[in-house]
């Protein structure tokens, strides 16, 4: 039982990252009908940006110029990095996706892949092959609750991830911008005719998605403090699986599917020999899709491929 609980805690943390990244994928996918394959690398860039800001703030603190408590540094890092990465996301949308909005969707997928490669290589050129350590902003404290080990980091990561997902959900449900986004997801062709500014909505979508990716990057840096330029690739593709598994146009679906993917990966490794983890985990996902072909929360829809 403790083993199960321990793994449950672990899976919650692991799923948080998938969830945050998958939300960004899912938003772009449902509103613009694009696969944003640069998203994994936006996550990576967000982590690096966050690391830079955190190092700067910590440096200022140790130089005695601006002494801040650790938690405030973290909050500031999180906010600043989200803003910067959101700008990066809007820039990517402007350069790589807007010119292709009426092109076949796959072309945009390719520009996304290529922007991702440029982000990776640019990082390698700028910072060298050295890996970067994310500064420990909060001293890790381990609590033992009946044989289950929980750290303050894990609790914080899960809370922040869930909080951000919930905030976004509220934004989309309750604001006019959110309504415009939902409308776009409902009918891409007609809604712009109603006076909804498609360019601004698209930019907003990318900004929100990238901001969440940056948050995921920083949380990731807290939990696994080794950053390298290629860390976004596998995360990106797996979150892509989670995004589609969640169902089209559903923030809730993407969040849950992200957590589900985390749970499957962790629990498969717990029950079966861990060498077979990917094999079994993705076979399970295949099975889920056989029975729910439109994803967990997706409605049947017909894609009019714009070929």
């Amino acid at each position: 039982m403790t083993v199960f609980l321990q793994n449950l805690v672990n899976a919650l943390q692991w799923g948080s990252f998938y969830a945050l990244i998958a939300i960004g994928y899912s938003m772009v996918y449902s509103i613009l009908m694009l696969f944003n394959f640069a998203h994994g690398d936006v996550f990576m860039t967000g982590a690096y940006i966050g690391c830079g800001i955190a190092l700067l703030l910590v440096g200022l603190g140790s130089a005695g110029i601006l002494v801040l408590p650790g938690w405030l540094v973290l909050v500031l890092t999180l906010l600043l990095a989200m803003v910067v990465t959101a700008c990066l996301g809007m820039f990517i949308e402007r350069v790589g996706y807007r010119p292709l909005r009426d092109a076949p969707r796959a072309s945009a997928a390719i520009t996304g892949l290529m922007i991702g490669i440029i982000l990776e290589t640019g990082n390698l050129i700028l910072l060298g092959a050295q890996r970067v350590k994310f500064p420990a902003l909060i001293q890790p404290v381990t609590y033992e609750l009946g044989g289950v080990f929980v750290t303050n980091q894990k609790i914080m990561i899960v809370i922040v991830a869930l909080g951000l997902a919930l905030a976004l959900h509220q934004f989309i449900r309750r604001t006019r911008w959110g309504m415009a986004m939902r409308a776009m997801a409902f009918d891409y062709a007609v809604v712009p005719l109603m006076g909804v500014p498609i360019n601004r909505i698209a930019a907003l979508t990318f900004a929100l998605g990238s901001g969440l990716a940056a948050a995921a990057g920083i949380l990731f840096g807290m939990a696994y403090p080794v950053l390298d330029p290629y860390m976004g690739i596998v995360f990106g593709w797996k979150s892509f699986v989670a995004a589609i598994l969640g169902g089209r146009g559903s923030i809730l679906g993407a969040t849950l599917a992200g957590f589900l993917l985390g749970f499957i990966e962790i629990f498969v490794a717990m029950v079966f020999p861990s060498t077979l983890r990917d094999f079994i985990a993705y076979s399970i996902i295949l099975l889920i899709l056989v029975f729910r072909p439109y994803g967990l929360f997706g409605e049947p829809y017909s894609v009019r491929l714009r070929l």
Partner: protein
Amino acid sequence: MKNVRFFAVLFAVLCLAALPAAGQKTPVLKIGINAEITGDIPKVGEATKYAAQMYVEDVNKAGGIEVGGKKYRLELAIEDNEAKAESAAKAATKLITVDEVIAIVGPQASKQAVPAGEVCNNYKTPMISGWSTNPNTTKDRPYVFRACFLDDFQGPALSIFASQEYKFTKAAVLYDVASDYPKGIAEFFKKDWEKRNGPGSVVAYESFTTKDTDFSSQLTKIINSGADFLFTPQYYNEVPLIVQQAKQLGWKKPILGSDSWASDELVKLCGKDCFGHFFVSHYASAGAKGATKEFIDRYKAKYGSIPDDVAALTWDAIGLIGAAIRNAGKLTGDIKKDREAVRNALAKTKDYPGITGTISFPPGSGDPIKCANIVKINDKGEFEFYKSVCP
């Protein structure tokens, strides 16, 4: 026929322009570097490049390499294999047939080194990989060598150390199943450990996949298995994650590692959590003496970081080639004959004083005989020599 005149003029201009492009002829020997500069493991390529460049600068500063009474300048031909198998084969072919190198250093990772070794062996060009531990790299290939020790020595060396030094009886192993290097060591370790402590004495044998960053479910299993220590033959960028997560999950026992831990980045990334753990190394940077210390100091001064195992092994690999060129007797200028001569000299290498130990190649094999050092990460975060294990 205006266009004909245009082409004729263009052509004449080009021919004229081509004439002054002559250079002076000094005898040059080219050594190929086939390294993972981009792709998954850029750090490996960088270290390879740096160490090789430093070696070549040294040799050329001393006036070049002397063979049979004649001095040659060394030159590097560096190719990036993008950490891809087919690119490594292409790069090796290019180095051999286009750049006409006398010998090749790298690729370092086995995924690239095995196909590149095939190419080098077919073209009868000596190749030496610093880092590749896959037996396939050198097996049945007289022209392919390596500078590191093999898994079947390193795994048992650790098993001997752990059972004799600490009288441990229950081991746990955590390794990357998708990467042949950790997997190889893990398997040899397990075999040797069970031979010593009876079947079932490896109480947890857990794995993950390359690029994973969360090991919590594996570590949870390991912690519940009651093992005396954890052996994790992972790379230095993964070790901090494993060690820190283990600590957070309540693990307090020792952790042992393999030569892939040896990088000053390990301590930079891991901090205090890694202090007190042991690993096998080709060399220990703290308290190093003689040539090893000199190498470490100069590398640090030049590139700003303590050389990792890749840099040290590359240094030895290219040093072995340099020694073989010196011992080749006489170079004819016919690249095929010269490669043959260098290969023969390389195969006869005996007691080469490398910075990662004394290296000899047994007859008919490209796998060196050398000792392993057990290194402890001390309380200052330095790699301190602890014990030596020889085959």
